[in-house]
């Protein structure tokens, strides 16, 4: 069942006020830049000539082509991450006018209808900045590792066909499978707070990564990982590993850190019923905890 949750459409820039202002010929873009991990950030203003059908990606391409700020100073291109350019990979997630969303689906004309003065771009605030609008989202993927968000069916022999999946199960699973690991749910979550470690002097890459992953494992896993647990636990083959995933959800930083603010479901660009997944995971962990207590 695909349940439409209380979506604030303005978060996705699809608000139509029914008014038709003439779009400005030019507009300002304010970018929060940062030269290196841990370096101080600074604002930079750019003036862009409006063209039809622009999105934030094409704005960033214009900025790179102009290589000049609004004040006429020479500058380097703004760094950002992108891949698919059609809102299915999640790589270009950033804060557009203060809200977390994908740059590729943030259309300039709609943003200017909301605020004709300027467009503000900032990197996501919950992940360490690599440079400018590019962040390191490895914690997001570490959480998927922690909860074993996969079905282990690799082998050297033919395991035969898997069990049949009922249409009802498929309908429940499909929306959850649309998750593109963009991190919007984490960015908007008041319980998901930034973890940024600094590499110590003389520390090897391996040692730093181990220290970082230990820190990530203690932090909140987030709505995306909880929803993936429900996706794989409800699959007949994936259910064989359900207890291990529930154990991971009950470890430190697990589902118990959820504060039920429900921002995750409000900002999810794929409209995944994340809070339903959280409720189901709550029930599954409740039952698992009781079973564990009485069965051991």
């Amino acid at each position, binding site marked *: 069942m695909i349940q439409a949750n209380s979506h604030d459409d303005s978060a996705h820039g699809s608000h139509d006020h029914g008014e038709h202002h003439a779009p400005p010929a030019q507009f300002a873009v304010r970018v929060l830049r940062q030269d290196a991990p841990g370096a101080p950030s600074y604002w930079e203003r750019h003036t862009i000539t409006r063209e039809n059908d622009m999105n934030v990606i094409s704005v960033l391409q214009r900025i790179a082509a102009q290589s000049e700020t609004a004040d006429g100073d020479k500058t380097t291109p703004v760094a950002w991450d992108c891949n698919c350019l059609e809102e299915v990979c999640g790589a270009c997630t950033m804060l557009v006018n203060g*809200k977390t969303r994908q740059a590729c689906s943030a259309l300039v004309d709609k943003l200017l209808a909301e605020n004709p003065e300027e467009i503000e771009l900032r990197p996501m605030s919950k992940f360490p900045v690599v440079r400018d609008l590019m962040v390191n989202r490895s914690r997001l993927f570490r959480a998927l590792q922690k909860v074993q968000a996969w079905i282990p069916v690799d082998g050297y022999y033919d395991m035969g066909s898997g069990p049949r999946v009922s249409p009802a199960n498929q309908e429940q699973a499909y929306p959850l499978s649309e998750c593109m690991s963009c991190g919007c749910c984490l960015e908007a979550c008041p319980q998901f707070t930034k973890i940024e470690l600094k590499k110590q002097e003389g520390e090897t890459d391996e040692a730093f990564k181990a220290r970082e992953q*230990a820190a990530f*494992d*203690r932090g909140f896993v987030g709505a995306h990982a909880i929803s993936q647990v429900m996706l794989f636990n409800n699959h007949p083959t994936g259910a064989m590993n359900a207890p291990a995933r529930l154990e991971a959800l009950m470890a*430190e930083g697990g589902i118990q850190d959820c*504060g039920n603010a429900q921002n995750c479901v409000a900002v999810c660009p794929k409209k995944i*019923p994340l809070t339903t997944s959280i*409720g189901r995971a709550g*029930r599954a962990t409740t039952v698992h905890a009781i079973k564990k207590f009485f069965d051991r």
Partner: protein
Amino acid sequence: MEAAVEAARQGTFFSRNEFLIRRLHSLTGLIPVGAYMCIHLLTNASTLGGPEMFQKNVDLIHSLGPALPIVEWTFIFLPLIFHAVVGVVIIRSGNANLSSYYYVGNVRYTLQRVTAWIALLFIAYHVFHMHGWFHNAWWLENVANNELGGHQFDPHKASSTAAIALASPLKKLFYGIGVISCVYHLANGLWTMGITWGVWTTAAAQRRANWICGAFGIALTVVGLAALVGVTTTDVDKAEAYEKVRHEMNLEEQQRAEAEAKRLKSLSPAEREAEAKAQAEKEAKAAETKAH
């Protein structure tokens, strides 16, 4: 370096038992703390029924006698302190972001934390104001009673002392805000608890549950504020007169019981046996006449 990673993996007592502690925090919010609050507010609302009714209810609670402090500590104070301490840890673990994401759910999340702080301050003040925190003679006489205006409530003079303690409009306002905060925290907490434990999972089910929790919250707010109306309309002189008569009657009864106990104690074993025998005969006769 590896030791640091190992230490991080091991974590603290809280982090190792985070799931259990968080679920206990959720549970104690409803049982016994929330349930107690409902009983407390209902009892208070009986001030509307006059000093007789309120005094009767207070006496019922105090009929537990020496067991009352044990019951209070087991079912009220310890769970409440646990809920508050873990709650402070939880609040500090989050970062409210209402200005960026102004959604209904987020407003409720933020309010849950704001009302938690108000409730904590209010309950700490309320227990001091009415009971002086500790029922220790030296403490009450030298600290709580005189200088700081605590320990205003006397269970033998329930209506009059409650009315006097809450005579000032400023105190009534503070109590009103405190009660509403506590009720919001319970009603909203009940709703989030249903998600946490997995009682209501889908958005539609959560909306239905929201109506029920909202209705519960409004009803409990009415009950809670009724007590403030009750203490406002209480006629202190009349209540005091009633409480005095009642207290004297209770004292007389107590003295009679004590005298009887003393008399029985002074009897010799033979006399006591004779008396017991006479009593038994009397009872047997009464039973016989009843049977006929």
